[in-house]
């Protein structure tokens, strides 16, 4: 039997999978990075792992998609296309896999159809297997992606998002598979997307069996998370019942919320007489040996709560959102409210809103609503725009049941029926004028962008431009290892940093002294390839005029009580809910901040009149930045 490689066409790949006596493994490196390290695993580390990962004989390497494209440009400062190109050079054989959120692509809200198609076309140049899902399992939301993937001659892997509860029957999912195949045809891989790592091994085994009974020729790919520590059980049950591909990841970096260790999967299934086809166990081990010493540099990105969370079966947060949710709780100062949010409010909201699938962007709607319900003390009192859209059916029909009338009334007021009548229904987004966008980007860059830069820009306009400017100023920094790029606390005097630039030229930088003059201007001396270079930094802005040096949480809270509302965490302004001169009451929402996927309402703690709004929608804020000022009544 020949190994599945990039040299095969989709038909050959699917035939090989169908004839397989055993199972294949997808190395889900992207989901591990996202679930356990907030997506921060650098290309540098993936390149170190590349040769042994390529030799390991995986069905595929999931290395892009999900939130990773946004984080690539926002935090890792790497071009998401260049990343794939460079990895492909080091990994000629292994199929590359992505995770695509259907109409939401790699972002958090629906994109116009022409943007979806252009994006898929560009990424399909590098991506062989397209795992596509929709958080409502609404098949039309995935159709444009399916079509473009097929046109590009790549493999479609439609997903059924999985969850638990009385509605989530085998029959429901078998019908969903039928609905998908009616659109895609049978030349697909079907993914059971268990993003929360929900259900027992038995439940997963039953589901795989039910689908296999209905569609014996269908290739099933089981994707899970190890949040409760039991995903190997589910993987085992899936394979024993006929799944052909399963997800796991390199043990050197295994955490708690991502996929389980590859090697443990192999060892477990071996005892059941199931062979991991084409897998070179030595290469699997070598990968972890190669990258193991990189792990400490990523510790700063691990979740605030460490350890398995079997309670995921209650709150159902997807593994990929655990890290960012806990980070938001820590930054927002409500980590202590987590038990209440996770174990009571979140499952309650989930049931109230229809018990659909807690995965991007639905998981953010559930989370934001639950957090807001607990922190504001008034349930559904501060509905986000996304919640409103969801209730209006903009993202798709409710699969099982609609939320109760009282929720609609709470969110939309007494006229909710009229509003639902008028505005309800699936969101229709007009095509974008892509040429106009290209001109806009040309203007902002000062030069003609490449098609790939345009696509990156269409995903996240502001962050893409910031990234392009970063690259102009700081070069291609993906060459820097995490020991440099993610260094905390500065370098030691005399420390030497050795790296190769993107052309392969080796460089040596020695850290020289740092001196501050009387004006507070700092001069840093670096010995760059034996040539001295001097870098001068202006003094940090002084407190008083512009309170820039981050305020403590207590200070921000104190200012809020005086009507001076500041950002409590770093994020973008996605809504300003009031206008200057408007009267506000205690508890009124004045703005919404968004960090990564999370929308967090900003609520007034005072009654008064909005005096001054300091921000614009879309503006990026750091903790302590001014949002707006309210003149407190009676003062």
């Amino acid at each position, binding site marked *: 039997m020949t190994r599945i490689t990039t040299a095969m066409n989709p038909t050959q790949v699917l035939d090989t999978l169908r004839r397989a006596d055993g199972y294949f493994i997808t190395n889900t490196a992207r989901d591990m990075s996202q679930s356990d390290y907030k997506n*921060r695993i650098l290309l540098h580390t993936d390149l170190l792992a590349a040769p042994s990962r390529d030799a390991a004989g995986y069905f595929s390497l999931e290395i892009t998609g999900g939130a990773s494209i946004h984080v690539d440009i926002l*935090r*890792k*400062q790497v071009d998401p296309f260049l990343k794939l190109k460079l990895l492909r050079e080091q990994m000629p054989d292994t199929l590359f896999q992505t995770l695509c959120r259907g109409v939401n692509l790699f972002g958090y809200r629906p994109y116009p159809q022409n943007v979806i198609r252009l994006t898929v076309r560009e990424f399909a140049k590098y991506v062989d297997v397209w795992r596509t899902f929709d958080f409502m399992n609404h098949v039309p939301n995935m159709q444009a992606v399916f079509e473009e993937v097929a046109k590009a001659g790549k493999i479609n892997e439609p997903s059924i998002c999985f969850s638990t509860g009385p509605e989530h029957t085998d029959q429901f999912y078998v019908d969903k598979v039928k609905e998908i195949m009616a659109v895609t045809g049978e030349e697909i891989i079907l993914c059971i997307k268990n993003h929360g790592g929900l259900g027992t091994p038995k439940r997963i085994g039953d589901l795989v069996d039910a689908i296999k009974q209905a569609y014996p020729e269908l290739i099933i790919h089981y994707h899970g998370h190890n949040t409760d520590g039991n995903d190997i059980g589910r993987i085992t049950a899936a394979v024993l019942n006929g799944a052909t591909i399963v997800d796991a990841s390199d043990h050197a970096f295994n955490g708690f919320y991502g996929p389980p260790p590859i090697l443990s999967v192999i060892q477990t299934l071996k005892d059941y007489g199931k062979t991991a086809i084409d897998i070179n166990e030595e290469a699997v081990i070598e990968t972890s040996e190669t990258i193991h010493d990189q792990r400490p540099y990523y510790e700063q990105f691990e979740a605030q709560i460490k350890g398995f969370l079997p309670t995921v079966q209650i709150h159902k947060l997807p593994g990929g959102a655990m890290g960012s949710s806990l980070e938001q709780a820590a930054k927002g100062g409500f980590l202590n409210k987590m038990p209440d949010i996770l174990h009571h409010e979140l499952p309650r909201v989930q049931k109230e809103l229809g018990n659909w699938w807690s995965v991007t962007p639905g998981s953010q709607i559930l989370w934001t609503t639950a957090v807001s319900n607990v922190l504001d003390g008034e349930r559904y009192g501060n509905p986000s725009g996304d919640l409103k859209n969801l209730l209006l059916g903009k993202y798709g029909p409710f699969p099982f049941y609609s939320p109760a009338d009282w929720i609609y009334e709470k969110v939309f007021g007494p006229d909710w029926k009229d509003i639902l009548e008028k505005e309800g229904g699936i969101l229709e987004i007009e095509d974008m004028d892509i040429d106009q966008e290209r001109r806009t980007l040309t203007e902002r860059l000062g030069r003609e962008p490449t098609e790939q830069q345009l696509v990156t820009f269409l995903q996240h306009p502001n962050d893409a431009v910031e990234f392009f400017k*970063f690259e102009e*100023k*700081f*070069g*291609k*920094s993906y*060459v*820097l290892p995490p020991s*440099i*790029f*993610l*260094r*905390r*606390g*500065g*370098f030691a005097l005399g420390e030497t*940093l050795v*790296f190769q*630039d*993107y*052309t392969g*030229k080796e*460089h040596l*930088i020695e*850290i*020289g*002294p*740092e*001196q501050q003059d009387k004006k507070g201007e*700092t001069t*840093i*001396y*670096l*010995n*760059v*390839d*034996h*040539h*001295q*270079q*001097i*870098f001068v*930094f202006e003094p940090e802005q002084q407190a008083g005029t512009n309170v820039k040096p981050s305020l403590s949480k207590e200070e921000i809270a104190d200012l809020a009580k005086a009507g001076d509302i500041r950002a409590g965490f770093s994020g973008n302004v996605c809504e300003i809910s009031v206008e200057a001169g408007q009267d506000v009451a205690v508890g009124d929402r004045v703005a919404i901040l968004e960090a990564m996927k999370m929308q967090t309402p900003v609520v007034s703690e005072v009654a008064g009149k909005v005096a001054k709004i300091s921000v614009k929608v879309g503006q990026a804020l750091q903790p302590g930045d001014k949002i707006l000022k309210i003149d407190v009544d009676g003062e």
Partner: protein
Amino acid sequence: MKTKILVANRGEIAIRIIRAIQELKFEAVAIYETPDHESRHIRIANEAVWIGDGPRSDYLNIDRVIKAAKRVGATAIHPGYGFLAENPAFAKACEEADIIFIGPPSEVVEKLGNKVTARRIMAEAGIPMVPGTSNLPAGDAGLEEARAFARRYGYPLMLKATAGGGGRGIRRIENETELHEQYSIARAEALAAFNDDSVYIEKVVINPKHVEVQILADASGKTVHLGTRDCSIQRRNQKLVEIAPAFHLSPELAEEICQTAIKAGKAADYFNAGTVEFLLDSDNNYYFMEINTRLQVEHTVTEMITGIDIVRTQIKLALGKKLLFNQDDVKLRGHAIEMRINAEDPQNNFMPEGGKTLSIYQSPGGYGVRLDGFCYQGFTVPEVYDSLLVKLTVFGWSWNETVQRLKRCLDNFVIAGPKTTIPFYKNLVQEPDFQNGEFDTSYLDTHQQLFEYREQKSEVSKLARLIAEIHHKKQNIYAA
């Protein structure tokens, strides 16, 4: 007892002289003021004498220097450059104290130090001069003489203090109105600054080159030249970069200028090492400017192209030896460039950066490279003296080779602490006019881009910028 020679100077030139003394198997005696107590010249001398707290006043104190020489039993004193080097009273005091002054006799120092006397001697010897007046009489008579001169030669003019020097006491006069305004002010200032209100006028040679000739003369009057130097690259009339031999000079013109220099030396009864300075205009007219009766900062470039140790020769001549070589034996080969690496901020009008500590000092080396300095890592540059840290002199057989060697050396020179002239020189060596040897005294004024340090555009420089930010902010704010 060994012959002792006292070095009446500090900094790099003291070390340069001490080296020559020790190579002659004599003993070198250093003197120092308190702010120089960490200076390296003290460490390498055989003996060092503290002469006072200064600053500068004790290096300038003839009495103390002579006393120090007497106390250690020094046979001779080398004055270096600056301080007492061109003070005829000091040369005379040495003579009276029966100490050999390594330089010309006091009367030669005196007559060449007085610009008007020097001009008279040179005019009588038929040396070409910038047209000028002798000392102008005080009051309206002087002003009238100046106006008459201006009518004949035109503006601009230079109004110069007779007792001035080193770029001080000079003002440029553009028209008659300015002449009226400036004349009496210049006299008053000269009186205040030099205790002598004599002034005279010279025609301005527009954008000349500064070309000078090193001469050596023994007691018998035998005088040889060591070729030309070009010192046109200056800021505020202070030299920054010196080149030997002067570039773009026809062999005939170079020879003529050198022979004129010898004639000038002979006319002044010159003895020991001296430098005859000329201005060269764009039509290749050259004019005598002055004779410096001392070792020059830039003597190193001449040593590099002739192989003659000028300081060693100075000492031997002073001790009564004859010149052992003839003019024909002096061969000029290749090119040498010296750059004065000063603790100064070129972008801030060359403001001195004294008082700062050299936290890194790494110097280049290799073929054709010479360093004359006195600094070391950990050394704090005194604020009270000049800002010269080290002279970088390179030699190469061709001009291009020399420039590229210089560039290599500058790239490898690391000084952290004070700002230095190095980044400015890095721009200079890449500037096309400099690379073509095209420069005159207006060079800095016409090449302001040298003061804009090239934003480092190389990939590694960009990454270094990021690393500097990560270091400074204690984290990568772009990845946080």
